[in-house]
């Protein structure tokens, strides 16, 4: 589904250049469940941003379904993010002005779905993540775990091919984190690919593949039971 070929990312700071990613190659198939691990500052988040086309690589090629999407126009990139990817962030990134249901409905607005379609789907997803009693609550009125479940429902709203989760349990207590992991695993079982950045080795172990990043390079790309696949 996704092929990153020789992707590098260099940040131009005031007087120095920081190489966040160095000639990274990754192949992601449909239905995969990947954990990206590594120490802070190793380039995990940068890799996630490039995977989600939230940032562009300084060099290299990004292919989606065999098409080179490295240099697409803004409108096309937005369409791909909307249709193919769902994002989950450590700090939830819900809109505090919108209720739970409105937060879930929002991405479908950009997919030109009708009000009714948006509402029906949002109700279904919020029920799925166990928030049927929280439809009209604002994020500030919900716990961290509930907010992250709303964020997962939002990520699933446009039936994405891939969920990109950046430390989704980082701000949650263990039990709530476990609930979130179970929802992600269920989505994966339903056919959605999941790429998750995590510091938690236990969560990493639950993934089907672990990609270890250090100093902008992939040092380990371990597929199911230690099979290396660089």
């Amino acid at each position, binding site marked *: 589904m996704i092929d990153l070929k020789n992707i590098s990312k260099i940040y131009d700071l005031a007087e120095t250049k920081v190489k966040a990613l160095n000639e990274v190659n990754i192949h992601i198939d449909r239905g995969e469940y990947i954990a990206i691990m590594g120490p802070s500052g190793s380039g995990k988040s940068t890799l996630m941003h490039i995977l989600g086309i939230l940032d562009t690589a300084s060099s290299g090629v990004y292919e989606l379904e065999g098409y080179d999407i490295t240099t697409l126009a803004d409108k096309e990139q*937005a369409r791909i993010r909307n249709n193919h990817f769902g994002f989950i962030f450590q700090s939830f990134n819900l809109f505090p002005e*919108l209720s739970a249901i409105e937060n879930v409905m929002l991405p479908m607005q*950009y997919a030109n779905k009708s009000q009714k379609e948006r509402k029906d789907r949002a109700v279904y997803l919020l029920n799925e993540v166990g928030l049927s009693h929280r439809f009209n609550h604002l994020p500030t009125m919900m716990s961290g775990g509930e907010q992250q479940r709303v964020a997962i429902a939002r990520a699933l709203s446009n039936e994405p091919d891939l969920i990109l989760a950046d430390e989704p349990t980082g701000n949650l207590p263990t039990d709530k984190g476990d609930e979130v992991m179970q929802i992600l695993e269920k989505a994966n079982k339903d056919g959605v690919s999941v790429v998750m950045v995590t510091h938690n080795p236990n969560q990493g172990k639950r993934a089907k593949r672990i990609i270890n990043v250090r100093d902008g390079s992939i040092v380990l790309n371990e597929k199911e039971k230690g099979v290396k696949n660089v």
Partner: protein
Amino acid sequence: MFSEPFKIIFRRFVDRLTESGFLIISVALGVGAFAASGTLFVNVVNQNDELLNSPTYKEIVVSTRAEKETMEFPVEETLLSDDTILTQSDLNISQMIPSIDYAYIMNNTRLKMINESFINDSDNFQHSQQIKAINESSSNETHIDENSQQMELEDSFLDENIDDALNDKSIVKSDADEISGYEITFEFFDAWNLSTEYGSLFSTNDYSSTNSLIILGSELAKTLLDDDEDLSSLIGKRLLAMQGYQTIVGILEDSNSTYDYQFFLPYNDLANNIGFSQLRKNSMNTQLRFSVSDSTQLESVSSMLEQSFESEFGKNQVIISNPRFEAEQTVARNAGISILILLLAISGLFISSINIAHILLSRTLRMKKHVGILMALGATRKQINKLFSLEAIMIIVLGTVLGLFIAIPINRQMQSALNLTINSNWTILVSAFVSSILIFSFTLIPIRRFDRIKPADAMRVG
């Protein structure tokens, strides 16, 4: 009903009501000041143009009476000389001055009306009975001196009973106590480019006839109509006045001038029924008017007229005035004031636009993370720009409406202070629209900051 992204903007707008309120007030003040002063400026320019193109300011007035306004010590109007009598024949001077297009007499006059309220007023009724009594025992040329005003009664009036006249549908009555108008010579209508909608202008014979004829301005004529009548029905009818019946021969087309509310009588100082004493009285009131099409000729025509009248009557026997001179001074003063006010308003608008852009910039920067999330969820930069433009438009629309509430009374106040006709509704709307567009263009500065931002960079904030 509303899209979710719009709800974000709208709810933020409401949540930050104080800040939003200040923004709206800034817009209102900028738009209000600009719309009021812009409208003032446009009206000054238009009305100055109209004023200077008006026939009033393309003519020279010759009279024997010093007007209060032109006297150094204005106490009352006085005759310059007991000997100088201006007559219609003095208009012939114009034939020696080719620049003069029209020469005519135009004297103010009034007609006292006889109507129900006149009769109900016992004093007037007794007075009218007195007139009747006197007239029944005297000739047609009798003049009654009443309150220093001569009232001449026609034959026809004497033969009728006033009560019968009031009940006669064919006789036109006015509800007003009196109406004002002018005695004019025939070139007046040409000079002012006035023509009739119904009936006709006075014929050459009418000016030498002893019949009392009258032409009505369109608005005055409307006040004389019964509900189910149209203007044409007035032609040929007689108007009942203390001075006698006035036969209506014409009704003028609308001219959008004061003449729409006036009547016109033919002036003739050579008619047989005017004795010397009446001629003397008329002369006090008589103003000769010499009109030119090219206003630059006014000065030379004025000096030529002065020479001609001096040679006829002697030095300082007549007043020769050029109303354009004063009008030009008024025009220059109004233009200066309106330009100054406009410049101040433009400065205010510019400062308020910068302030609004500045506040919106900080507001937008606080929304940077929102922008990143929206883009991650599938919004294009164009959609983000539209969304923030919507916020700016919301502020500007509310500010502009409030601005109009400020602009309209201020504009009226300024226009009345400069003696301008208040006629500004569409101009004030256009000025408000122009200023709101200017403010909007400033609000694009913060909005365009997101033109090149990447979602990942936007989300790093906070």
